[in-house]
C-alpha cells in the first residue's frame, strides 16, 4: 500500500516511470472494462491510451483520502469509453468500414473472448447481468433497469445482492486458502 502511495505521489510530481509502473499494474483491469464497453479492439486501445493520458495529466486531482486509485482510474476509463462511443474517432470508423466484411464475425469472436470470468461466473444469471451492465457496460442504474426490463428498485437490489454474493465468494475463497495453507503447514 505504502509502495503504491509513493508511486502515486511520484506520478503527481510528473514521474514517467511511476506512470509506466501504474500502467503495468492497472492497464489489464481497465482494458477489461474498456473493451467490454467499446466492443471494438482498435477503439478500446485508443481509449485505454487516452485514459492513461488523462490519468497522467490529471494526477493532481486524485485524492487518496477519497478512495482507491483504481476506482478513480475506473471512472476515467468508463467516461472516456462512453465518450468514444458517443463521438467515435473518424479514423477508427473508416478502419472498421474497410474491414466491414469481416466485422460481424470478428466482433462475435471478441465478445466471446470478453466473457466474464472469476467469482462473477458463480453468481445467478440476473445478478451477473446486473453487475455486467453497470460495471462492464458502463450503463447507469436508470439505463440498466430498462435494459433488464425490471423496476429501478428491483434492479438496485439485484446489484446489491450480486455484490453481497461476490463478497461471500471472496470470503469463502479466502477461507479456503487459509485452510489449505494450514493443511500444507
Amino acid at each position, binding site marked *: 500500500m505504502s509502495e503504491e502511495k509513493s508511486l502515486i505521489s511520484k506520478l503527481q510530481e510528473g514521474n514517467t516511470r511511476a506512470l509506466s509502473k501504474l500502467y503495468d499494474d492497472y492497464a489489464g483491469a481497465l482494458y477489461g472494462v474498456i473493451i467490454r464497453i467499446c466492443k471494438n479492439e482498435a477503439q478500446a486501445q485508443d481509449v485505454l491510451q487516452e485514459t492513461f493520458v488523462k490519468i497522467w495529466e490529471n494526477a493532481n486531482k486524485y485524492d487518496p483520502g477519497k478512495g482507491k486509485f483504481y476506482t478513480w482510474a475506473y471512472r476515467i476509463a*468508463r467516461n472516456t469509453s462512453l465518450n468514444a462511443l458517443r463521438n467515435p474517432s473518424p479514423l477508427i470508423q473508416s478502419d472498421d468500414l474497410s474491414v466491414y466484411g469481416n466485422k460481424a464475425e470478428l466482433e462475435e469472436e471478441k465478445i466471446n473472448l470478453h466473457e466474464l470470468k472469476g467469482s462473477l461466473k458463480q453468481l445467478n444469471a440476473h445478478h451477473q447481468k446486473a453487475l455486467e451492465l453497470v460495471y462492464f457496460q458502463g450503463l447507469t442504474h436508470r439505463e440498466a433497469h430498462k435494459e433488464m426490463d425490471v423496476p429501478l428498485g428491483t434492479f438496485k437490489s439485484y446489484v446489491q445482492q450480486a455484490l453481497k454474493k461476490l463478497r461471500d465468494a471472496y470470503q469463502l475463497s479466502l477461507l479456503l486458502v487459509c485452510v489449505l495453507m494450514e493443511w500444507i503447514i
Partner: protein
Amino acid sequence: MDNMMESKEIREQGWLERYLLGELSEEEVRAVEDALRKDPQLKMDMDQLEADLEKMAFENAIDPPSHVKSQLMDQVSKVNVTTIPLNENRNNRAYLAIAASLALLFGISSFWLFSKVNSMEEDLQLVQEENAQLQDNVLELQSDLAETTQWYEAVNDPGAIKLILAGNTNSPNALAISYVNHDKKSVVLDAKGLPRLAEDKDYQMWADVDGVMIDMGVIPKDTEMIAMTYIERMESLNITIEPAGGNDHPTVENLISNVYLN
C-alpha cells in the same frame, strides 16, 4: 437530494455502488462524501465494496497489446519533455536567477550604503576637527586682536608720554621705547629693540624715586610689548642686565640705558 443523507438510506438505496461507479452528480457526490466522513462504519462498508469491485475487475482483466503502452509512453514523454520538466527547470532557473540577482543587488547596495556611511562618518569627523581648529584660530585671533587693540590704545592714548631708552656704551645697539601714562598710572614697554641676552641673564627695569631704585619688573625675553609696574613720583626709567629671574637691587655697572621723566 437532501444534503443530510442518512447512512441507512445510502446503504439501502445503493448510493455507494453508484458513487463508486461514477454515476452521481457533483452534488450527490458531495452528499455521499459528507456522510462517509461522518460515519466511519459507512466508510468501512464502502472500502469493502470498493475492494470487491476492484477484485472483480482484476479477475476480468484483459492484457492490452504492448504497442498501447509504448505509444502512451511516447506521448507523455513528448509532453513531458516539451512542457513539464523544461517549464519547471526554466521557471526554477528563472526564479533562482531572480533570487540570486536580488540577493546580489541587495548585497551590493548594502555594502555601498555601509561604505557610504563609513566615509560620511570620516568626513564628519574631519569637518568637526577642522571646525575645532578654526574655532581655536578664531579665539587666538580674537585674543591677538584684543592684545593688539590694548597696546594700540595704550600707545595712542593722549596721556601717554613716549620715552626712548637708547643704549649706552654697555649696549650701544639697544633701543627700547616706553609709554608712560600718569592719568592711567601705566607704563608700557616696547622691548623689541633690545639685543638678545644669554639664557642666564634678563633685562630688568627700575624707577628712580628720590635716589632709590625701585623694581618695575623683569622684561620677558620673548615678548615685544610689556606692561611694567607704574611707580608714583618716579623721576627716571632705567634698564639693567641682571641674573635670570631678576634681582632685588640693580647692578649699576650693568646699566644699559636710562631716560628722565620731566
